[in-house]
């Protein structure tokens, strides 16, 4: 399907920049902030630098696409991901346009699944209460860009005392080079409600550059249960992803967040989970696998803004090819947050001589009477394990695949989501098959 080649450059697209009238002036300010901010470079002690110097920002623009009326007309990469699964709400954003929306007729009263633009129009008070409350436009060039230029977007809302079984799903898809996509998700599960929110960022193997600068805000209101599953799989194209995602957990609420990173040319993401009020409890279990010359830079914060909160963060990652992957996990416990208990661990697996992995857990604790600890390991495939499995008739290649899948199993098994589990296992197996010679050669040197 050909794109409508309307080029919406930030400077001249009145509608785009104005956006919903309620935030028109905010968007202007954000645009000014975006334009005046230099393109950032993220440096850390040691060898680590994430730079966007290879990204030709000027060549990219938000691109509009016509809507489609059935799943069959969606891009292949989207159809593969959704299969015949049923959703409480499904929103597919291609470039700058939401091209497909689906809501379940069986949703309980008060459940909302629509574009964020529609939500501003139809539920202004509800949106105003949450929009931008956790991710400010002032955090940096790309949150400003998102605030100024997002279009479409997704809004999911589950009212108090309401439990929704089927997941809410937003898919951001980029299927052409030259696209700048500003995805935006706002999801709320209100008091004593229960919901699952999924956000997939997908692309086929495009030939050229594109940008995704997304913002995701999820709110788990008091006593609610939220499951958040974010999956990134940008394919082999040159897609740059600079996104910020934040989950806020209110009093006595529980949130489980499973971020899955399966591919992207260059990714710089900030993923924060905030236990904001007493009794808030979170689990943050992520995984990544990098290949080729991918560059992945993740920074997560387990932020405790209140006492009597609990957290458990486990991240697992593997790097193949000449990819570089960095996971930095911070536990931050603010002043006056007594009786907070949290733990962070990160484990990485090097699968190639050329790959680089970096795992940095850290702590900022400003309260006594808390327990906060962290640990990290960087390992390699152990030749003793490989030999053991080979003596059971399993080939070297299969043994390595099984070991890597086993390495990820504690995270994948925790999804409690058969479809996502299958999708992730399949993709990981595919990536390991592509890198198998390299991996085997590396393991044999150990």
């Amino acid at each position: 399907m050909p794109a409508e080649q309307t080029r919406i450059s930030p400077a001249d697209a009145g509608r785009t920049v104005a956006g919903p009238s309620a935030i028109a002036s905010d968007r202007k300010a954000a645009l000014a902030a975006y334009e005046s901010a230099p393109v950032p470079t993220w440096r850390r002690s040691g060898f680590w630098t994430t730079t966007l110097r290879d990204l030709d920002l000027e060549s990219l623009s938000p691109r509009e696409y016509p809507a489609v009326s059935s799943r069959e007309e969606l891009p292949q990469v989207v159809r593969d991901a959704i299969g015949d699964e049923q959703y409480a709400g499904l929103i597919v954003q291609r470039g700058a346009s939401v091209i497909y929306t689906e809501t379940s007729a069986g949703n309980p009263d008060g459940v909302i699944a629509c574009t964020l633009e529609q939500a501003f129009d139809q539920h202004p008070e509800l949106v105003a209460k949450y929009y931008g409350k956790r991710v400010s436009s002032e955090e940096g060039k790309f949150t400003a860009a998102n605030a100024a230029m997002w279009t479409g977007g997704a809004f999911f809302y589950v009212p108090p005392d309401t439990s929704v079984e089927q997941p809410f799903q937003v898919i951001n898809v980029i299927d052409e080079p030259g696209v700048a996509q500003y995805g935006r998700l706002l999801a709320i599960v209100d008091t004593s409600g229960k919901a699952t929110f999924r956000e997939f960022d997908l692309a086929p193997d495009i030939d050229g550059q594109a940008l995704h600068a997304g913002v995701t805000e999820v709110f788990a209101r008091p006593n609610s249960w939220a499951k958040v599953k974010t999956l990134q799989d940008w394919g082999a194209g040159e897609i740059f992803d600079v996104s910020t995602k934040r989950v806020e957990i209110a009093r006595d609420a529980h949130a489980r967040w499973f971020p899955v990173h399966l591919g992207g040319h260059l990714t710089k993401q900030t993923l924060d989970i905030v236990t904001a009020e007493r009794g808030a409890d979170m689990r943050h279990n992520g995984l990544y696998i990098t290949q080729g010359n991918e560059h992945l830079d993740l920074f997560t914060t387990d932020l405790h803004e209140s006492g009597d909160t609990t957290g458990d963060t486990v991240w697992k990652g593997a790097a193949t090819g000449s990819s570089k992957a960095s996971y930095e996990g911070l536990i931050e416990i603010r002043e006056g947050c007594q009786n907070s208990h949290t733990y962070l661990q990160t484990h990485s697996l090097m699968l190639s001589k050329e790959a680089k992995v970096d795992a940095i857990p850290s702590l900022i604790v400003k309260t006594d009477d808390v327990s906060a600890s962290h640990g990290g390991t960087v390992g390699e495939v152990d030749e003793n394990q490989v030999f053991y499995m080979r003596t059971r008739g399993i080939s070297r290649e299969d043994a390595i695949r099984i070991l890597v899948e086993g390495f990820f199993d504690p995270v994948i098994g925790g999804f409690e989501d058969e479809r996502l589990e299958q999708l992730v296992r399949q993709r990981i197996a595919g990536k390991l098959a592509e890198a198998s010679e390299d991996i085997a050669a590396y393991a044999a040197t150990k």
Partner: protein
Amino acid sequence: MADLEIINLHVRTEEREILHGVSLQVNKGETHALMGPNGSGKSTLANVLMGNDTYEVTEGQIIFNGEDITGEDPEKRSQAGLFLAFQYPAVIPGVSVANFLRMAVNAHRDEPINVKEFRDKLKTNMDLLTVPREFTSRYLNDGFSGGEKKRAEILQMAMLEPTISILDETDSGLDIDALRVVSEGVNALRERGMGSLIITHYQRILDYIKPDFVHILLEGRIVEEGGPELVAKLEEHGYDWIREEVAQRAG
């Protein structure tokens, strides 16, 4: 020719030669005990038979089912019907016992085993080894006690039905009850026709699994061979008796 024929095997690591010409024959249905003090080369022999390339075979041959497998990959040896129960099995995190068994069983077949057939077979063998149900959903050897690890080894052996098994110090670290269970498992497989080479430092396991033949390995050489009576003699006199005898022969 014997089903497993080890001919004048010389084996070395980077540092030194460990086996100085070992010859041994094991047939289906036969139970052989290979005894020797620590450091005599027992575990090296077990590893080399299975194709561990940390060791280099500098001379001699391993013939299995009439084929020279001296340079063969470990997985090919396993598929041909050779099995090693490890003294220190590797931990395989994230892979459940049941999944691992299924993958191992399938690696020995052209078509994957069907679900029911696998389940029935697993149940039979778990009953044989008095393995509790929840055992199979645990990650293989991850956090297992010494006894659980050895049971998991014998369970794999029972599932794969090898023609010849090498049991490398399966008895060490086992309490008497676990030893009895493991031995009963081995005896049941022996009745199905499996041959075995039981490597041990102690005679205790041989009270439960009666060997047909006994070989004594000392400093990389087989120095004494005989029947079960050799076990009794060792028990009475210890390895010093062998050492003295070897010294006299040389002297």
